[in-house]
């Protein structure tokens, strides 16, 4: 459904942030997209959403295709209308709007009538019943977990076929994190929404996804079925913090410089 082919992007005409990325999100799947800070994951999402232009960035090479449309030259609102929504990093609720308004803003591009929108609104509240008691509250005053639920709900309101989540676990308590991931899985299954999941929490992301990509320095360095990735030595050591022979790695013993990551050679 979504195909990114050999995408190269620069910021300020000079800083090459994406050095030829290709990834593929099949229909109805959950794809994990991992990588350390500054690897270019968020830039990839920005490019897919068509926002690179507004951040002084530019796609130099490559294509992005979605359901047969070449979307890399489209306006952001057209891309949303085609069915791609993004849940941005750091939640980005509209703090001055109420929870209710925040969720409804997501339906901005919908043209299929009030009843349908209302139905989806109830669907969102069905997934996140906590929000029911908060509807009239200013979104800025809600807790981090509630805000995360709100933005996922907001993205669902556009009735997407592909939802891109940028670090939904950021700053959440572990228990909330697993709750959110549970809901993401349910949304994928029940609403037939494909999901591209950008995460720092590799363990969680690989556990829910079918396939994973690992990105470093603007390149995809490794990809494969999530189960396989979890067994990969490097992934274990650098992303999951597990080393052969030890139960769990102590941070005191981390010696990053000792061994080059195999995939860099």
């Amino acid at each position, binding site marked *: 459904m979504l195909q990114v082919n050999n995408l190269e992007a620069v910021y300020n005409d000079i800083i090459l942030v994406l050095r030829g990325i290709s990834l593929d999100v099949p229909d109805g799947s959950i794809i994990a997209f991992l990588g350390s800070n500054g690897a270019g994951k968020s830039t990839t999402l920005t490019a897919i959403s068509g926002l690179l232009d507004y951040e002084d960035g530019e796609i130099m090479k490559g294509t992005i295709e979605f359901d047969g449309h070449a979307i890399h030259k489209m306006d952001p609102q057209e891309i949303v209308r085609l069915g791609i929504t993004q849940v*941005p990093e750091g939640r980005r609720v509209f703090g001055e709007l109420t929870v209710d308004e925040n969720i409804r803003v997501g339906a901005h591009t919908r043209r299929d009538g009030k009843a349908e929108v209302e139905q989806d609104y109830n669907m969102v509240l069905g997934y996140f019943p906590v929000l029911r008691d908060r509807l009239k509250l200013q979104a800025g005053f809600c807790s981090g977990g509630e805000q995360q639920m709100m933005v996922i709900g907001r993205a669902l309101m556009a009735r997407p076929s592909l939802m891109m989540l940028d670090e939904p676990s950021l700053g959440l308590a572990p228990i909330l994190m697993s709750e959110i991931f549970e809901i993401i899985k349910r949304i994928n299954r029940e609403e037939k929404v494909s999901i591209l999941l950008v995460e720092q929490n590799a363990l969680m992301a690989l556990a829910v996804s079918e396939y994973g990509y690992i990105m470093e320095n603007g390149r995809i360095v490794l990809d494969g079925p999530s189960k396989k990735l979890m067994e990969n030595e490097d992934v274990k050591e650098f992303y999951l913090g597990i080393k052969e022979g030890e139960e769990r790695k102590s941070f005191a013993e981390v010696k990053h410089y000792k061994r080059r990551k195999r995939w860099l050679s």
Partner: protein
Amino acid sequence: MGFQILIQLIITGLAWGSIYACIALGFVLIFKSTDIFNFAQPELMMFGAYIAFTLITTLKLPFVLGFFCALILMVLIGSLLEMMVVRPMIGEPVLAVIMVTLGLANVLRGLTGLFWGYEELQFPSPFPEEPLIIFGAAINQAEIYTILATAILLVIFFLFFKYSGAGISMRATAEDTRTAFLMGINVKGVFTASWAIASLVATIAGVFLASFTFLEPIMGHVGLKALPAIILGGLDSVHGAIIGGLIIGVTENLAGFYLEDYLGSGINEITAYVIVLIVMMIRPYGLFGTKEIERV
């Protein structure tokens, strides 16, 4: 007697305050959604008033019809200005954009002078001349209409921003442009709409101001009084701009009357700025301005 004067002063103050509030509202709407301080706002007001004047006196339209036509024309002009003058500047440094609006102000003023001349023109006031007697105080009817019209306008705006989908999208864009893009909101459209609405309120302010006083190309200088109103209310607060405008209008009138004997005439000219100074010392972000609500 003192009581009647007080009522008179307050009502006059509210009427002037409404005008300041309308100008301030234009500033705030544009600033909030596009982060540009539009120095041409008072000139939009002046231009709108001139257009209404031409429609009513030259084309002999009835006042209400002429007024509405002027509003529609100004909405178009405002949108066009945004598309032609401001949009090419997106992404440029803020200062450059602000200089462009300053230039726009001068161009508008120059054009007005060119077309209509620099002399003062008498605006055909539609309001009855004879004063209305309330509690024994004689009130100029034009002032009452100004207050009423502004009040109605503000209620409409409140409802629009609170309940309509377009209004909510505009507020969302004002708060976070990037996320608004991600929601599929047509951000460029919102920018144009904010200029259109700002031109609309400017025209309303201009027509009422002109019917109080007269038309001249430099009438935009009243806009200088809207600045303290904005700063008082907080640069990013719509209701702050309105309340700020009313406060400035009323205190200016009261001070002008009661303090004149002690502090000399002309005290009303500086009252606004004195109030702003005091408020700034206590609340640097204005009475209703936001210190960002942040949650991480």
